[in-house]
């Protein structure tokens, strides 16, 4: 509880908080409400930025403050427990229907409080430390992820599944991702990596630093970023076009949202004198992949496979039937949402038995 000098107000806040945690609506009678009546109500976990987080058990109401975390929740089959997400959570399309709490950087604390979350999920690369601190002062637990590589995305998703009480779903996702990546390595592992420039933004030209999960995703897809060097300590370095012209990437890689398959920027770029000096531009050597590559969530494997297929098409020709099937499977047509059903068999029975909405209070 911040601010309020007066201890009376502080205790007011504590009481109100305890009241909503224990879901005892009229708390007038309770002078010192204890939450831990009965089963252990909290579990101590260490999140990925090293904080000790008290996670209410079971986690029934989740607010996600990052599109990647929203996707992970859907993949884990926990979408019914997701009570709020950000304006940018647009995948799967169903995520857009959830209650919105604002942007990832400037979410409305009030909206979050009003959603009564058991746990708020944040990710260090997107959310602000101030938001996490403010939530802590309001007595709302937040769990932070911080993956920097594709492997860490896998372990991070698996760990998150454990925190949310669905370790089986987490293990299934992790093994699925690992299998697909291993399969990919069998096909392209021996091939020399293509030298690419991953374009985050064109004006100014922003690429990715070597410590980002995107740079690692490129490596997994049989590519190496031309800015993948000592000088790319920054996560999102602004790159000089001259430097790009000197290094002459074989491919430019763009991420397009699922709404637009080909970003108009690609053709527009070829009309700029500065960009025409790039061989990749004059030869139209582009790879356009899903913006899933921008999100540290399980779907990034699909983007990696897609990129590998565009950069190393020869590695995928010997088994045409297999390849086509895979394509259909991994690029769900139209608005069909990617859900856990696609590659996740057992759903946690606890999830299905759970009540949603305010009924969660009936414990």
């Amino acid at each position, binding site marked *: 509880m911040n*601010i309020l000098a007066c201890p009376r107000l502080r205790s007011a806040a504590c*009481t109100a908080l305890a009241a*909503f945690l224990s879901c005892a609506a009229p708390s*007038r009678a309770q002078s010192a409400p204890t939450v831990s009546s009965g089963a252990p109500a909290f579990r101590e976990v260490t999140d990925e930025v090293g904080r000790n987080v008290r996670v209410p058990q079971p986690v029934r109401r989740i607010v996600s403050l990052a599109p990647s975390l929203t996707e992970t929740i859907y993949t884990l089959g926990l979408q019914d427990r997701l009570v709020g997400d950000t*304006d940018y959570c647009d995948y799967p399309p169903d995520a857009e229907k959830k209650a919105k709490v604002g942007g990832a950087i400037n979410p409305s604390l009030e909206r979050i409080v009003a959603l009564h979350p058991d746990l708020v999920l944040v990710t*260090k690369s997107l959310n602000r430390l*101030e938001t996490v601190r*403010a939530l802590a002062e309001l007595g709302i637990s937040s769990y932070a992820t911080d993956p920097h590589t594709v492997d860490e995305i896998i372990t991070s998703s698996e760990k998150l599944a454990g925190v949310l009480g669905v370790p089986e779903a987490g293990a299934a996702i992790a093994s699925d991702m690992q299998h697909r990546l291993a399969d990919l390595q069998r096909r392209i592992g021996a091939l020399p990596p293509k030298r690419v420039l991953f374009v985050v933004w064109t004006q100014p030209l922003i690429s990715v630093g070597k410590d980002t999960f995107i740079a690692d995703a490129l490596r997994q897809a049989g590519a190496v970023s031309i800015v993948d060097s000592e000088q790319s300590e920054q996560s999102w370095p602004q790159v000089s076009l001259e430097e790009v012209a000197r290094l002459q990437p074989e491919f430019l890689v763009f991420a397009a949202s699922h709404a637009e398959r080909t970003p108009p920027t690609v053709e527009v770029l070829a009309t700029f004198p500065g960009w025409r000096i790039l061989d990749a531009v004059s030869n139209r050597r582009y790879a356009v992949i899903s913006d899933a590559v921008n999100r540290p969530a399980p779907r990034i494997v699909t983007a990696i496979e897609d990129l590998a297929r565009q950069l190393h098409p020869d590695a995928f020709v010997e088994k045409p039937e297999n390849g086509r099937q895979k394509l259909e499977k991994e690029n769900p047509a139209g608005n069909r949402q990617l859900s856990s059903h696609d590659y996740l068999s057992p759903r946690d029975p606890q999830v299905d038995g759970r009540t949603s909405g305010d009924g969660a209070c009936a414990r």
Partner: protein
Amino acid sequence: MRPLTLHRLLLQCLLLLVILFFVVILALKFGAVPVSLYALGRDLLRVLFGQSSGISSDYGLIIVNIRLPRILLGIIVGASLSVAGTSFQALLRNPLADPYVLGVSSGAALGAILALIAEPHLTISPVFAALLTPLGAFLGAAATITAVYFLGRRQGQIDSSTLLLGGVITASFLSAIIMFLMNTLTGNLRGLAYWLMGDLSTSPQKSVYWFLGIGFLAATGAIYTTAGDLNLLLAGEKEAMHLGVDVPRVRLVVYIAASLLTGLAVSVSGAIGYVGLIVPHAMRLLFGSDHRTLLPTAALGGAIAVVFADTLARTVVAPAELAVGAVTAIAGAPLFIYLLRRRLA
């Protein structure tokens, strides 16, 4: 100038307090989550009468723990910026002076950022670490106003257009350094871009409120002791000196105190612009330019302005939020141009 009576001062302050009260009610009622006036009144009465355990709804949490602290912060920040603006205007004899326009806010921001960068490398107690950012902001503000003051002097007199230009150039120079630091440094400085715009969305710890409140009262009190001298200074530094004003002392006191006010405000809310410009003008129009009444009325007016602007910032694009600095700049910049044109005409 009419003689000051305690009666008139109290009446003016009472009027502004009533307005502030209604703006606070407005700010408590409106937000991303709708709260009924009835629930608000009920909860506030319970808080007032010590029956706070009766607040059962999460509305109570939203009102008491999110909106109220934020409003309190808005009041302190608005009052600080407005008093700082009033003081700069008197001392520099320039009605367009304002901590933001003069670059003092940018200097404070740079000082705060340098303090944030230095903090992990220093071995100091956590209590002092929390005060490092306000201290850095204060030093940055003080250094900037000193530099701008000397930039604006010509042949021993302050030249107002040189002063303003000097301030604007200093502000852009300091902003460039801030951009440079943000681009070179890795680590979590992303939040800074938002904070720089002027942002009240994240309330600091309770101890910081005490620090802010005491700092505000001390600095404003120090400036108020020079209120009579500031009135005489309006006639000019030489004239004031002939009338027996210890100009160097007044200048030192007011610069330090106004820098402190700006530094405190910037360290918790970033650079909220134009409050220190608009509010003193409005108060002068309403209540005259006697600094003995202008300083307290400007403080209250600044509080009203920032709380109101922040309410707009919270609600216009809800549930997302605007930076309050964007709201004050949209309202303040056109007014600045109007005042500038009127002065030139």
